[in-house]
């Protein structure tokens, strides 16, 4: 009760966005300097295009992930939804124009429109399914979307095999899509960037300036209070899960275009976690109620910039490290977000657990450097990490004793 006053202090609403923006700039500048090819300097447009393509592709459904997270839920199924919607798109076009599809010829505008339309509808259907499981069956969102994470990919593969068996000479695990419209989507990066930008703008206005958006925040902030204030919380959830699944469906179309194939075995696999990571790095709280569109967009950009930076520095085989980078960025971003909010009163390396964490962290960082740059730099990095962490521990212990 009497502590309310102390917790009521807030940081300026934009501070995490500014921090992220600065972090993006710093990452770009550092990469420009460290990268031995200096590709940001000599081939800026090409580099920008790479980052823009990846950012737009991830950002489209990161926005969906963010909306569900702000509404107090979670959507784990986005990666499978991408595969499923891509498959629905491919299947629809194969069913409507089998000869052209098999001969890799243009299928015609209305067939493409039908394919994309069906794919968005599949998002609507899956979102409705999620909302029904969460509100009517009362499954925890984690369980409901875990079920579709596993189920949708399998369903997409089954759909692929049965339609190809029925419509083409042989059963196949993928459907090639070579219509010029999809080639255009692939070759013209700025289309996906424009779609992402428009979607982000619409989502931003929706979340900050409409009643529905306010209700999304209210639902995530305090679901019981929202219902008792007369908000139809089940409808708000319905919207949130449909919005999320439809952004993944839209992203699915771009995935198909980029790879010229609807391949449900691997398309978008694991990418739901990247989207959730982008939202979290952007300041969305998994407890619900907190998060912004600018934050999510910047979180996505930051994640892609760091991934790109590492690939520029390492040169070959950088995709192996993508997951590691995402993991490290998420931990660091959330750690510093929390420390900022608690005015630095918390120690990072307290007690025996903190002591045990020091060699673990040193070992992981040294090992990573060893694998990318050779044994000696690895050992050096490990020793440096050990020294820095030990120093931090000593400093924290001393200031804790003094304070």
């Amino acid at each position: 009760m009497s502590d309310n006053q102390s917790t009521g202090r807030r940081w300026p609403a934009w501070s995490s966005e500014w921090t992220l923006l600065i972090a993006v700039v710093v990452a770009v500048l550092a990469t420009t300097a460290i990268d031995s090819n200096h590709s940001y300097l000599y081939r800026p447009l090409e580099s920008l295009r790479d980052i823009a393509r990846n950012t737009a592709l991830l950002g489209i459904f990161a926005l969906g992930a963010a909306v569900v997270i702000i509404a107090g839920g979670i959507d784990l199924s986005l990666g499978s939804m991408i595969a499923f919607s891509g498959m629905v798109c491919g299947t629809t076009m194969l069913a409507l124009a089998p000869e052209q599809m098999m001969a890799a010829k243009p299928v015609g505008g209305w067939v493409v429109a039908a394919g994309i339309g069906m794919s968005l509808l599949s998002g609507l259907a899956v979102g409705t399914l999620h909302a029904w499981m969460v509100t009517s069956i009362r499954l925890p969102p984690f369980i409901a979307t875990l079920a579709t994470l596993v189920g949708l990919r399998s369903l997409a593969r089954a759909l692929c095999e049965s339609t190809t068996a029925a419509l083409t000479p042989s059963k196949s695990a993928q459907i090639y899509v070579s219509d010029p419209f999809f080639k255009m989507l692939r070759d013209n990066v700025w289309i996906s960037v424009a779609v992402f930008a428009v979607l982000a703008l619409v989502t931003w206005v929706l979340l900050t300036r409409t009643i529905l958006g306010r209700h999304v925040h209210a639902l995530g902030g305090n679901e019981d209070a929202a219902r008792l204030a007369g908000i139809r919380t089940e409808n708000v959830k319905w919207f949130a899960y449909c919005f999320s699944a439809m952004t993944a469906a839209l992203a699915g179309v771009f995935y198909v275009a980029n790879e010229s194939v609807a391949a449900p075995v691997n398309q978008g696999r694991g990418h739901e976690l990247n989207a959730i990571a982008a939202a979290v790095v952007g300041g969305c709280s998994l407890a619900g109620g907190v998060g912004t569109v600018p934050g999510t967009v910047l979180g996505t950009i930051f994640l892609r910039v760091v991934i790109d930076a590492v690939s520029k520095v390492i040169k070959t085989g950088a995709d192996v490290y993508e997951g590691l980078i995402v993991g490290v960025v998420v931990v660091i971003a959330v750690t510093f977000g929390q420390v900022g909010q608690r005015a630095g009163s918390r120690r990072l390396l307290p007690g025996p657990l903190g002591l045990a964490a020091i060699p673990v962290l040193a070992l992981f960082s040294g090992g990573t450097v060893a694998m990318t740059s050779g044994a000696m730099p690895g050992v050096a990095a490990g020793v440096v990490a050990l020294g820095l962490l030990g120093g931090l521990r000593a400093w924290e212990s001393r200031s804790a004793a003094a304070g």
Partner: protein
Amino acid sequence: MPEPVISMQGITKRFPGVVALDDVSLEVLPGELHAICGENGAGKSTLMKILSGVYQPDAGSMMLAGETVRFSSTREAERAGVAIIHQELALVDDLPVLANVFLGRERRNRLGLLDDRGMARETARLLETLECGVSPRVRTGSLRVGDQQLIEIAKALSLDARILVMDEPTSALTESESARLERVIASLLARGTTILYISHKMEEVFRLADRITVLRDGHTVRTLDKDETSPREITSLMVGREISDSSAMPPRAPAEPLLEVRDLHLPWPGHVRGYRLDNVSLTLRRGEVLGVAGLMGAGRTELLETIFGVSDPSWRGTISLHGRSVRFTHPSEACAAGIAMVTEDRKRLGLFPDFDVAANISLTALDRARRGGLISRRAEEALVAEPIRATGVKTPGPHAAITGLSGGNQQKCIIGRWLLTKPEVLLLDDPTRGIDVGAKAELYTLIDRLCREGLGVILTSSELPELLTLSDRVIVLAEGRLTAELSRSEATEQRIMEAATAG
């Protein structure tokens, strides 16, 4: 005068942006019950959390029985014999009672496995001394708040605590549970335990305490012997001014019936009684406050929730508004029909901690905060200005954080939220729980004024004086049944308690 068992000198504690305690001193004598009084935000809980090792002070010193101590955790404080029972109970709902009592200090048998039988025996023994008949093996979350509180006390006893801090222990208890707690306190004192006791309830403080320390705005105002002071003096020291006696409200003139409930029956599947409410009828007129009295579990909240369309829709009977039968299945329908409800648990069921003051209030009327289809900051500010003024919310501005306001001002925001829906019937479920004396008086004035402006109010409260002060009529529930309907002149604490325990 004996040597003090606790001596805190010059305690200062800062939180970001706030000095919670500024040079506070406190001396507690061995074996006394020392009450700490003060409005919300005065620093009572912070001081007790420092004493029990939850927080560390930024300055000042603390002596226990003549020895200087410094606790960096509650565990250290417990070892020194200081235990705290928090206002919000800190029990693990899913564990059995015995596991909560011994949490963190589990006993093991010869094989190194948990000695559940020994811990259960010890827990049962402790609970017996506390007049608490629950089994050590039931799930803690299935117990009522009053019993859970005794579990916390049992935990403190098992620690052999010499000093026990109780932070508003009766705020969620029924009258009979409070009486039981008072007996427990008396036996603890008889055993020589020193008790520090935070409470808002003056009569309780004066019944129990030996000495009283008043805090205001993070400063010690004074420590007084109970026998040398009066509740009036304490409350005026707490707020720094005299409180007008709110029991002198002029009578109101109730008009035509607004809401009628006839033979309401709310089933309770799986419970021995079979119903939460049975055969309850009431009439609410325009411009009156209808008080609903009853012990915890009597069905007060359920009654309001059924009217508001929150509880399960399997109820029988009729509810009519302006003579038309209604049956709400969702709060939004009740809201559209002109009924508003301020819920019992403000933090859990009312507030949006991530929203600012304006957004917390405007939520029920966002369609009126739009310009060209989109919510406009200006329009929202204009919308909430009236309810902020009408309810007298003290806030630095419409965009201040709601969590920075005191409990009383938060409650005013929630009432303001509902005034925006222009209700005719206002359901208030224990609206002053956890609110300090000064803010209570303001809320009483507000409720009275709303009534005179033509609202009908149904009010529940766990404090009888409050019901007697505010109500034109009081109905009493006992175990889900209506046992009395008393007019203002008939209602006394004695008669209400008799009806509430009639069963």
